[in-house]
């Protein structure tokens, strides 16, 4: 499939058909920032102490997302009954392609570079 210039003027038939071609390419809203991360690796913080790192392939205004090559991290806190010390455990798993429902998403960011 050939790829023409995306955001600029479309082929003539589109104007003939009366279809509006989007022209703005500026970053105005927070969702535009996510648009800049398409096909990039991102970090997603979700509810219930879950985190995802993957390549963003698609998203919508609800923050439903399709991520590829995902690593999910689930963090749990176990409290020792006698000493009451908190033991943080995390479980990871890898999923090749994942749809994430937007109502679980809390934060979207570029991947964290630690150290």
């Amino acid at each position, binding site marked *: *499939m*050939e790829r023409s210039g995306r955001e600029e003027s479309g082929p003539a038939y589109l104007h003939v058909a009366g279809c509006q071609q*989007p022209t703005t390419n500026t970053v105005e*809203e927070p*969702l535009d920032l996510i648009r800049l991360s398409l096909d990039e690796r991102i970090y997603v913080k979700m509810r219930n102490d879950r985190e995802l790192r993957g390549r963003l*392939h*698609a998203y919508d205004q609800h923050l*439903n997302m399709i991520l590829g090559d995902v690593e999910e991290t689930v963090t749990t806190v176990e409290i020792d009954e006698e000493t009451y010390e908190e033991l943080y455990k995390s479980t990871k798993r890898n999923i*090749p392609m994942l749809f994430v*429902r937007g109502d679980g998403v809390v934060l979207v960011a570029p991947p964290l570079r630690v150290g």
Partner: protein
Amino acid sequence: FVFHFASVTRAFSELLTYSEFHVFGSVCSQSAASTLIPLLALTLACRCVFQLFYSFFKSLVGKDVVVELKNDLSICGTLHSVDQYLNIKLTDISVTDPEKYPHMLSVKNCFIRGSVVRYVQLPADEVDTQLLQDAARKEAMQQKQ
């Protein structure tokens, strides 16, 4: 209609929703655009609807997926249908992960309310990532207007 096939494919590939392009691609050969044209004229009319993921799931009907729910139940099955709320119907289901939920043994088909889905694990080779990214950009632009 008299169009150059290659340029039509390029132009209308930007208009088609994800699933429509996939359906047309499988009906005719991957590169042939000849049968696209009358169908594209129809889709052109109903363009501006925010339905990226609905279209995406429609393109995955018949594929095996694993749906993980918010109550941590994972169900593997064949995607039978989906609707605008992303409610999912699965057929031939089985519970993945260790059989912690034996009461599902006799259930073959199920309807899952979209709001209780946490993840849907998809077959990576069934997903056209380039098409998805383009469709997401389009959807984002439309949503702004």
